[in-house]
């Protein structure tokens, strides 16, 4: 899947998804800087939308090298800008779960200096992730609000971080449920140096679940700090395991 930078037509200024909303979204979110559609920004989506309140999306712009910021934008969502990653010392990569109101292009825009590189794919969906109450009554785990689950893997290119926070992402569009979201997540090393900062919008799914890849670090721990829209802070320390050889061998027995 990694597109060769030399492939013909890998970059274009014409929106390959032909979305009527894209020009205004670009104007609103790309700060007046020029944008290029670029296959090196990959958006991975499921083959079918199983649950419109929890759509898994992975964005991978690592073929671009270092990136200043990475946006995830869903053209036809009530809150199109879904997430912003500032990878201070991290790879331009993020896995997330989001809500989908209807079928929509899902974009990722990676800024290198003054130029945006934009990739994306169309996600088909039947409607109802944002403004329609979930099919099965949502239960919020208030007792564990802000609980952080996380694990780190030391890999060749850096530290892979997966985390899940117990917290609703109420977007304020459902009657009698006020806005209540996690707004930011900051990942630092043990000395307090900021490695990555993620801003989440109303469109991120409940119990935000993220995958990030941080640059290689000598630090033996990560500090995770989240803040929600009520101004509450949540912090936790995650030890990074020592480098091990068997980390990603991934062999398993096969059934006949």
């Amino acid at each position, binding site marked *: 899947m990694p597109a060769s930078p030399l492939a013909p037509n890998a970059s274009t200024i014409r929106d390959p998804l032909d979305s009527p909303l894209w020009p205004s979204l670009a104007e609103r979110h790309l700060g007046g800087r020029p944008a290029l559609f670029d296959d090196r920004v990959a958006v991975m989506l499921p083959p079918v939308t199983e649950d419109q309140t929890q759509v898994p999306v992975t964005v991978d712009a690592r073929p671009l090298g270092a990136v200043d910021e990475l946006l995830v934008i869903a053209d036809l969502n009530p809150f199109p800008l879904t997430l912003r990653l500032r990878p201070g010392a991290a790879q331009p990569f993020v896995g997330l779960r989001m809500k989908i109101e209807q079928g929509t292009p899902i974009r990722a825009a990676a800024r290198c200096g003054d130029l945006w590189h934009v990739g994306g794919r169309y996600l088909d969906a039947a409607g109802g992730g944002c403004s329609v109450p979930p099919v099965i009554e949502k239960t919020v785990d208030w007792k564990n609000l802000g609980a952080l689950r996380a694990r780190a893997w030391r890999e060749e290119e850096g530290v892979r971080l997966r985390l899940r926070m117990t917290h609703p992402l109420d977007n304020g569009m459902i009657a009698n449920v006020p806005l209540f979201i996690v707004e930011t997540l900051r990942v630092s090393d043990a000395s307090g140096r900021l490695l990555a900062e993620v801003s989440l919008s109303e469109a991120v799914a409940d119990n935000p679940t993220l995958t990030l890849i941080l640059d290689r670090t000598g630090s033996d721990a990560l500090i995770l700090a989240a803040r929600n829209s009520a101004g509450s802070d949540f912090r936790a320390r995650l030890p990074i395991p020592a480098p091990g050889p068997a980390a990603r061998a991934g062999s398993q027995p096969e*059934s006949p």
Partner: protein
Amino acid sequence: MRAADLLPAGATRRRCLALGLGAAAAILPAASRAAPRRYALEPVPVAEGAWTIYGAAEPITAQNGGAIANVSILDTREGAVLIDAGPSHRYGEALEALARSLTGKPVAHVFLTHLHADHSLGASAFAPETVWAGAGLRSDLKRFGNDLASGMYRVAGDWMRGTGVPAPAREAREGVEEVGERRFRLLRLAGHTAEDLCLFEERSGLLFAGDLVFLDRAPTTPDADLPRWRAALDTLAGIGHGRLVPGHGPTEAGRRGIDQTLAWLDMIDGRIASGFEQGLDVTETMALPLPGWTEGVAVARYEYARSVMHLLPRIEGERLPLLDA
């Protein structure tokens, strides 16, 4: 019957649908969307006085109208007995007419195996007093039936017209139900969903396994509990059945369906757990290669991807280490 019994039946039906819709489109392009859809049900004999209508080995679409599950008809002195009722009111009506023409009698009993729409919603075409379901299924239909039907209207569209939520008036309990000359042993199991009803008809030796068994079509897991599913398959393997009618796929003697379903559950379980251990997110775990034997299983990659969406988030919620605040 071998797989060949399924394929021609499915292929013929799909061809009929394609022809019917294509012809309508050629004459009345504007009206073709609203043209009434007709299910062309093709009964295949599976024992004396017993037939199965095989579902297409596909996902539910606006083309197949949700007719993807197997539905069976048994003749008895007291009338026709149906195992499952298909996806829609219209399917239920076609099934009623077919049962009447095959057996010369009205439908006496409809047994629903589980909640999923492709098996249950067609029961809305039958009088509630003829429809049987386990206690769990009866209450789940009350709770989730509307959402289930709404989802089907979105995906299958006009095929669903007139479909309501079935309200089975008869409770299917563990034990034997005698219907005319037939003896149905009812087993209330679980694992594919919260409650899966299986029926073993002692006279014919037919085992109707519902969606606890899939054959040559990948199992679905939106409501699955894998340990309970494996235990249910063990129970089925011990019955000593003759031929087994799975929820999806061909009817066969022996336990190939049971074994293939077990192997599939082990395969997805292993892959998804391995994805989690490697730190992969959902779409990355979906991209893991599948073993070669799954090439013979219809919609394997599609159902594997769905299963990753069902199961990996559960594992994350349980197994990602909880950090101290």
